[in-house]
Structures are given as C-alpha cells and as structure tokens.
C-alpha cells in the first residue's frame, strides 16, 4: 500500500496549462476517482503519477517519497490504459506474464513462479479458460480483463486506471465496475481511477477529485460533492439528473428564488456579509424538490409542466418558471399532465447558493 501526494503539480504543453497547480492527497488503500470532462487534465495527471509524463513543476510523492528521480518501471504502479494496450502478437498467457518476464534478470521470478502468478491472476479476472488464446482474437470485454490482469500481476502498490471501461457495452461495464470494486476490496491497494462519467465515479470511488480546465474544483466523498458542491461547475457536473439553477436575490432576510422566497434561517449572517453585487444563483437537486398543490402555502414557486421523461423507476418532469427550465423527479404513479400547474416546495436546507461572479458557493 502506498499513499500518493501531489504537490503544486503543473504540466504545461507550450501555452496550454493541462494541469495547473494541483494539490491532492490520496490516502493508503483508497479508491479515488479523477473526474472531469475531456481535456480537463485528468489523464495528464495520471500520466505524471505513473511517470509517463514529467511534471513541468511540482512533485509526485508515494508514501512521502519524491518520485521525480524514480524510473517508471521502479515505481511499482499498475496501469490500465483506455485502449487496453494489449500486445496482440502474444497469447493471453504471454500478455499476463510480460511484466514478470521484463524484470531485470537478477530480480526475475523463475518459470514456475511466473506460471503460478499468471494462473492466479487469470483466476481473479476470469480468464482461466482463455489463457492459450491469441490476444488478437479476444472480444473487447476480454481484452479489458487482460489489461486488468496485466496490471495486477506485478502486485503493484498503486493501481492507475485510465477510463478502463469506456469502450465496453453498458451491461458489461456495470459488471466490471462491480468486479473492480470487489478486486479493490480484495487486494486493498490504492486505486486511482480516471473517468468522465460521474455515475461511474459516484458508484465506485471513496473519494472524487473533480477537475476542470487543469484545475482541481473539489475533492471529497461522493456525498460531499452531491450535497455540498463547492462551485457551480461541480453542482452542474455531479448528479445523474441535471441540477436546477435559478436566479436568486437576497433581500430583507429572505432568499428570493424566482417569484418565491426561501427562509435563510441561521445562514442569514452569511448573506448579510456577502457582497452580492454580481447576483446569485440558487440550486436545488431535482430529486429534492417536493411537488405540492399549487394553491398550498408550502409551494415556494409555481410552474407549468412542459415535458415528461419516463425513465422506468422514476420520471423527470420539466417545468417552466419565469423562462427557466426546472426539473423535478417524481415516481411514475404521480406523473402530471403536460400543461398542468404544479407547486414546488424547496426545503431551505437543500438550497445551495452561488455567487455569479466567482461561481463559488456562498457559505
């Protein structure tokens, strides 16, 4: 096991700042996801951890030991590439054994030991029956298993996985996600997982580092990101149903959202102190909006239903309020008619407010 520390890590390609001043602490044995849209610097970060890229500035440390002078092969990391990087001129067995056979002669395991480890890993990833098959003839799903197995066989202290499941069909992806979580639990090693899919990150990782434009946006548990987004980027990026963003204004001890108002309670001081010259935006998760009778006092705002997306276990209802699209999740048996008016109740504790100028949460 190893912890990973990134200190002021930057990587510039010419004028492009792929990664900009990144500080990150990945604890022993944790499953950490680097999450962000494509081009946010997550793969570059991963490559700097593995040693495939040299940082422009900053340092990567494993267990507080600087890695800048340590060769890639000596860092003891297992890497799973997005396109698998399987050696198609070899059999599955040879692919799995490749790392062991590539060690310097004095450190190399003997043939029996290699054989034992190849078979053990094949068992773990479910390839025992395919060991003799040429890798060129494997299905995409099996290629992924080989890639996973090849990274495991060196018994690395750190696993780095770069969007390993993005090419798989969705059923097998779900299966592999569970498999990977099981394997991580079994080997108990530190895993860093790059993905642009927030569902994948939320479902698998203990901790998620959200990145955008080369910068760290927020680092925390999935609950943190979902319940307490640090800025509008995280509020928008996290969540399987797009978050609601409503223009807001603080006046006279109340937060005015649309044409309704939300009590601020003990957050009053925060708003009083905040210079809201640039305006505010309030968010509330579609799952957390409660549908009430439009005539009821509980209704924070009233809105017209414009569209319903039935997803099976739940419906996403789109409503229009003062020109803004508001989304609400309801059970299918409560599906409203299009054009009908609904009352929406916003629980003050679920409403997060962001400053329009900085995008940061007002707390």
């Amino acid at each position, binding site marked *: 096991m190893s912890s990973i520390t990134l200190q002021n890590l930057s990587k510039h390609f010419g004028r492009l700042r792929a990664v900009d001043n990144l500080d990150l602490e990945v604890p022993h044995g944790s499953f950490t996801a680097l999450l962000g849209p494509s081009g946010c610097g997550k793969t570059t970060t991963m490559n700097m951890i*593995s040693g*495939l890229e040299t940082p422009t500035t900053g340092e990567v440390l494993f267990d507080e030991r600087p890695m800048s002078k340590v060769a*890639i*092969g000596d860092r003891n*990391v*297992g*890497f799973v*590439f*997005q*396109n*698998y*990087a*399987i*050696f*198609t*001129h*070899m059999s599955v067995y040879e692919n799995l054994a*490749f*790392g062991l056979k*590539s*060690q*310097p002669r004095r450190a190399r395991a003997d043939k029996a030991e290699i054989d034992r480890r190849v078979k053990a890993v094949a068992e773990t990833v479910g390839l025992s029956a395919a060991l003799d098959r040429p*890798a*060129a003839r494997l299905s*995409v799903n099996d*290629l992924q298993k080989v890639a996973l197995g*090849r990274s495991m066989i*060196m018994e690395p202290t750190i696993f780095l996985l770069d969007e390993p499941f993005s*090419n798989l069909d969705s059923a097998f992806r779900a299966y592999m996600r569970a498999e990977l979580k099981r394997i991580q639990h079994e080997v108990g090693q530190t895993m860093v997982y790059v993905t642009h899919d927030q569902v994948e990150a939320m479902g698998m990782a203990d901790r998620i580092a959200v990145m955008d434009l080369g910068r760290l946006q927020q680092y925390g548990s999935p609950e943190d990101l979902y319940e307490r987004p640090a800025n509008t980027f995280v509020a928008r990026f996290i969540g399987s149903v797009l978050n609601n963003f409503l223009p807001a204004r603080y006046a006279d001890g109340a937060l005015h959202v649309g044409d309704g108002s939300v009590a601020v309670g003990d957050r009053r001081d925060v708003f009083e102190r905040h210079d809201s010259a640039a305006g505010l935006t309030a968010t509330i998760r579609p799952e957390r909006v409660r549908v009430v009778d439009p005539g009821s006092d509980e209704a924070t705002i009233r809105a017209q239903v414009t569209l319903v997306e039935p997803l099976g276990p739940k419906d996403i209802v789109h409503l229009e309020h003062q020109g803004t699209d508001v989304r609400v999740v309801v059970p299918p048996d409560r599906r409203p008619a299009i054009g009908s008016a609904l009352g929406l109740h916003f629980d003050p504790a679920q409403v997060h407010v962001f400053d329009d100028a900085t995008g940061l949460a007002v707390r």
Partner: protein
Amino acid sequence: MKKVLRIASISVFALFFGFPLYWVATMSVKPKVEENPPGIVVWHPESPTLTNFKDVLGINNANDNPFATTDFSALTPLKNSFLAAGGGTLLALLVGIFAAYGIARFRAGGAQLPFQILQLRMFPPAAVVIPLYFMFVYLHLWNTLEGLIIIYGAITFPFVVWLMRSFFQDVPREISEAAIVDGCTQWGAFFKAVLPQVKGGLAATALFVFILNWSDFLIVLVMTQDKWTTAPLFLSTMSGGSGGQEYGHQAALAVLLILPPAILGLSIQKYLVRGLTFGAIKR
C-alpha cells in the same frame, strides 16, 4: 449482371497482364527451333526442355551445349544480385526502421524531416548516377559489392522511413508505454512490444524494397563492370553474339529473376494482408 461485368473486366486485365508471363514461361522451356520459327507462332512448346535453364545455371556440360563458345551461365550475376539487393535491403531496413520509429513516436528531427527524407527520392536516379560514379571511383567503391549495397541502401532508405513511419503511427503509443510501465526500457519496449506489432508492415516494406533493388538496371550498369554484374544487366547482354537473339536463355533467366520476389511475396502473403488491416486495438 454486375457480377458478370466484374468477372469479365477482371478476366481482360488478367489476360493482359498474364499473357506476357505465359509467353516468357513457355519460351523458357522451348527448344531452340521453336523459339522464333519464321512464319509460325508456337503458342505452346511442342517438346519442352530444361536446356535453357541448365545453360543459364551453368550445369550443362560443354558437349551438349550447341553454343559452347558463349558463356550463358548466369550463376555469378545471380549470386551478385542476391548479395547486392539483399544487402541493400538489410541496410535500408536497419537504418530506416529506427529513423521511422524516431519520427513516428518522438517526432525526431521536427515536422520537416520526413519530407526532407522523401525529397531524396524526388530526382531521377539518372541525375545522380554520374556524380556518384566519380565519387565512388574516388572512394574506391566503384565495382565493389560494398559500393552497390551502400547505394541500394541509400536509395531505398526513404521508402523504408515513409512506409514504416505510417505503420508505427498506427501502433497506439500506449503499447510502448504499457511495456515501459511493466519494467521495459525504451529499447526493450520497441523490440518486444512495438516491433512485433508491425511485423506485417515490416515484411511488406522489406519485400517492396527488395524488389526495387532486385530489378535495378541503371545503377549496376554504371557502377560495376563484369565482376559485380547483376542478373538484370547480364540478361541484357545475352542478345547478339554468334547466336543472334537468345530468346530461350533470356526467358529462362527472366523466370529465375521473377521467382525470388514471387516466392517471398507468397510466403509473407498473410502478413501483406495483415499489414493493411492490422490494429486489433480499440482506439
């Protein structure tokens, strides 16, 4: 209907390209009297014989050979051809593969280098062969095997770079990175992981370059004399003399010249196809 048209057009092309081959092949086994009898066309040999081949390969004893005064044995030129074309191909591959990998993987030499290398092929060989002659005489490389190998290697080197560069570019860089993460050196990753991935391309490139060198006429004409004459040049000297045009012997040598590239091509056929379609890696 479409199918019929396609088969018909393919047949026409096959006939067009196949007939000269047929003519050379049959000519090579015709006895002297059937070669070019006045007023008759001999479409197929009446009494096929291997005499032409035996003469050309120098295994006829002098008594059986009606043209014993003329030496038809192409053994030495054939051997020269193998050495010069094979050596030149090896040299071009040896240098070109590394150059191609450096360019494809590390952009060695900048964006212009591939074009600068290709530019070496932009002028016709005839334009450089005269200065090369003087240079090689001065360097004592004229009429030597080493000289031929160096020229053949230099002339086909740009092809190796261009062909292999595109094959290397099709190998995802993750292939070499994966090998490096697994503990290989940059060189180890190249030989163990990358090069085997382009086996097909390498075979195709080697064949292409070998054929170019094997069929060279101009360079060997200028750069050698008797001792290092290669087979194509020898073929051209087989006419004339007391026997007039030696169609049978020429055809026999032509068949022998066709064989090596043809055999090589057939033996690496599966790589040639793979060379065009490889890439089982999802991108």
